């Protein structure tokens, strides 16, 4: 009975969605104005080849600052939700419960790990020239650490180092934004105040490239922290202290 009501409800939603989008043909040039402004401004004024990067970091840079903050909050919240007192545990440090991986997996992980880090770094350094950027590069770096975490039981990540990386990268973002208030032409937050350079050069785009590198470090550290917290969760079963 409940299912029938819900399916009917979803049917009503589907009908209105379809009828609304019937007037939006696929592939039509619908939204004038803001798109043309970005497509004109990004290569000519900011000298950033990848328009998506220039929107994410510059035109909507404040949004990205909020996004990075949300990821930081998620990683902190995860730590506090899964926190456990260690008194009744047998071991001293939290141990990962997964069994040791086979030698093949361990050797493979050891070989692939540096190349994964290199790919991630390449992607966020070239964020303003090619597809990709800080978020993608950071996620790829976290994938590399994940590979090491699942293959080696003894591979521990220093949470202090992660905290420091996050703090330095985050304050780089905010300080570069604040410097824009002082030195840039129009005195706006996150406005470019460095020389823009030439289109399709590595050192083009002023602060955009620097900020995306900082975002890459920050996202990589945050996601690595999330994965490490989740992987060190203790075994299943009822917790006597929580009832």
């Amino acid at each position, binding site marked *: 009975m*409940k*299912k029938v009501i*819900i*399916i009917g409800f*979803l049917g009503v*939603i*589907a009908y209105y*969605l*379809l009828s609304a*989008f019937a007037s*939006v*043909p*696929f*592939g*039509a*040039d*619908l*939204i004038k104005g803001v*798109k043309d402004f*970005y*497509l004109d401004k*990004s*290569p000519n004024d900011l000298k950033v*080849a*990848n*328009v*998506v990067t220039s*929107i*994410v970091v510059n035109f*909507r840079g404040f*949004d*990205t600052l909020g*996004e990075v903050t*949300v*990821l930081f*909050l*998620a*990683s902190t*919240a*995860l730590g506090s*939700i*899964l926190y456990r007192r260690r008194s009744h545990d047998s071991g001293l440090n939290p141990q990962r419960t997964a069994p040791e991986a086979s030698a093949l997996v361990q050797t493979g992980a050891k070989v692939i790990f540096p190349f994964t880090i290199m790919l991630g770094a390449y992607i966020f350094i070239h964020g303003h*020239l*090619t*597809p990709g950027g800080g*978020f993608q590069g950071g996620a790829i770096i976290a994938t590399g650490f994940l590979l090491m975490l699942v293959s080696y039981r003894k591979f521990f990540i220093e949470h202090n180092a992660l905290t420091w990386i996050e703090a330095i990268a985050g304050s780089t973002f905010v300080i570069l934004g604040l410097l824009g208030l002082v030195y840039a032409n129009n005195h706006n937050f996150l406005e470019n105040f460095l020389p823009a350079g030439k*289109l*399709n050069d590595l050192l083009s785009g002023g602060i955009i490239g620097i900020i995306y590198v900082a975002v890459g470090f920050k*996202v990589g550290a945050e*996601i690595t922290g*999330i994965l490490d*917290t*989740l992987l060190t*969760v203790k075994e*299943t*079963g*009822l*917790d006597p202290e*929580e*009832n």
Partner: protein
Amino acid sequence: MQEFLTYGIYGTAFFLMLLGLYAALVKKNLVKIVIGLSVLDSGLHLLFVAVGYISNGTAPIFSPAVVGKNVVMVDPVPQALVLTAIVIGFGVTAVALALVVRLYRKHNTTNIDEIKNLKW
């Protein structure tokens, strides 16, 4: 063909969204509910990118092969929004799953019907 792709892509996006909503409303298992929310997210991202697509457009990147030529580019704004949404979605999923693990530790079940003291 254009007509067909319109209904195909939008229809798939709506289907995924409604399927995710269905799972979140009907299913009793907490992990299944989070899976439903993740499927809903996927459909939403597909819808956004499809709305921003322009026929015969290229990716919005001024690579050396494109500079100076008169090319049509797809709308970069929905792509930037979806980029944000995917990363935020990951954070949301991670926190939701951490809550699932925490509830399992306390009640030893992932079925929402058996977790009695959530009622009020």
